[in-house]
C-alpha cells in the first residue's frame, strides 16, 4: 500500500506534465504559446513577494540568532513537561510555524542523535509532515496580492499547527508505543 502511494508520488509530476499539454493539443490550444503567456506572470509575482518575505525573515532571524527564541523555549518548558510532552522535541514544535529551514535542521539533528526510527525520530517526522510554516505561507500568499489585514488567518494557522503537534504526539505514542 505504502509502496503504491510512494510510486504515485514519483510519477505524479511527469504524468501531469505529459497529460496537460496533450489534452490541450487535442483541444487545439497552441500549447507552447499558452505556456509562455502564463509563465510571464511568474517573475513579477516573485518580485512582488520580496518585501514581504524580507520583512518576515529579518524578524525571524533576529528572534532566533539573538537567543530570544531559546529564552521563550525555556519559559514554555515547565508547562510542557507538566503534560509530559517530550522535552527534546519542544523546539521543533515552536520552530515549525516560524521557520521551515530551522525546523527541518532541528528534525535532522534529532535523526542524527537519536536515529530516524527512534520514538523522537518518528515523532519529529510526523510533526514535520503534518504542520506547515504558517508565517511563511501567510507572508507569501497575502504578500503576492498585497493584502495587509489578514483578519483571523494567523490565529487559525497557528492553532492548526498546535493541533498537528498534539495529534502527532498522540498517534506516535499510540501506534509505535513510547
Amino acid at each position, binding site marked *: 500500500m505504502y509502496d503504491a502511494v510512494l510510486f504515485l508520488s514519483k510519477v505524479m509530476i511527469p504524468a501531469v506534465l505529459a497529460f496537460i499539454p496533450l489534452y490541450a493539443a487535442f483541444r487545439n490550444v497552441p500549447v507552447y504559446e499558452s505556456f509562455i503567456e502564463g509563465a510571464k506572470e511568474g517573475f513579477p509575482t516573485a518580485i512582488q*513577494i520580496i518585501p514581504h518575505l524580507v520583512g518576515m525573515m529579518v524578524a525571524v532571524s533576529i528572534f532566533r540568532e539573538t537567543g530570544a527564541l531559546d529564552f521563550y523555549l525555556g519559559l514554555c518548558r515547565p508547562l510542557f513537561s507538566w503534560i509530559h510532552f517530550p522535552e527534546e522535541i519542544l523546539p521543533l514544535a515552536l520552530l515549525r510555524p516560524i521557520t521551515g529551514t530551522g525546523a527541518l535542521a532541528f528534525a535532522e539533528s534529532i535523526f542524527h542523535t537519536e536515529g530516524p526510527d527512534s520514538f523522537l525520530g518518528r515523532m519529529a517526522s510526523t510533526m514535520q509532515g503534518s504542520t506547515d510554516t504558517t508565517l511563511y505561507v501567510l507572508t507569501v500568499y497575502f504578500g503576492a496580492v498585497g493584502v495587509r489585514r489578514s483578519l483571523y488567518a494567523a490565529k487559525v494557522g497557528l492553532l*492548526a499547527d498546535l493541533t498537528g503537534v498534539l495529534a502527532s504526539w498522540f498517534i506516535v505514542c499510540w501506534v509505535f508505543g513510547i
Partner: protein
Amino acid sequence: MVNYIWLFMILSGVIAGIVQGEMNVVTQAALKGAKEGVAVCIGLISVLVFWLGMMRIAQDAGLLKKLASVLHPVARFLFPNIPRDHPAMGYILSNMSANLFGLGNAATPMGLKAMEELQKLNPDKKTATPAMCTLLALNTSSLTLIPTTIIGIRMEYGSVNPTEIIGTTIFATCCSTVMAILLDRWFRRREASKKRI
C-alpha cells in the same frame, strides 16, 4: 495579529541582544535574514514561471473548469461565497490537489493564482476576504497524503522503514486540517456577526 508577531520578534530579539551585550549579533542577524528572504524569492522565480506556464495551458484547455465541476461539492462546502464558474475555483482545487499529493512546490504557484482571482472578487483590496482565509487555513494545515520531503530525509539518515510514518502523518494532518476548517468557520461567523452590529 501579524503586526504584533512581527513587532514581538524584533523587540524581544533586540532586548536579548542588549541583555547579552552583543548588539552586533542583532545587526548581523537582520542582514542575514534579509539576504535569506531575497534568496527564497529568487528560488521561487523558477518554480513560479514554470508552473504558471503549465497552469495557463491547463486553463486554456478548459481543464481547470473541468476539475472545478468534478469537485464541485467539496468546493461548495468550503467556499460558499465564490460563484460557481469563477476561475478562482479551478486554481483553489488544483492547489488542494497539489498539496494532497505532496507536490509542495507546485502548490504555491496555484495557490498564488487562486489568491489573485480571489482578490478580483474582493471589495476592499487591503483586507482579506473569508474565502482567502479559508484557502490559507487549508494551506497552513498542509493536508498531505505523502510527506515526500521528510521521507527523503529519513532515507538519508538510514531509516530501516522510511515510509512507516505515512500513516501517522495522515492521521495528524487530518486532525490539523479538520481543526483549521472548524476554526475558520467559527471565526468567519464571529467576524460576520461583528459586522452586523
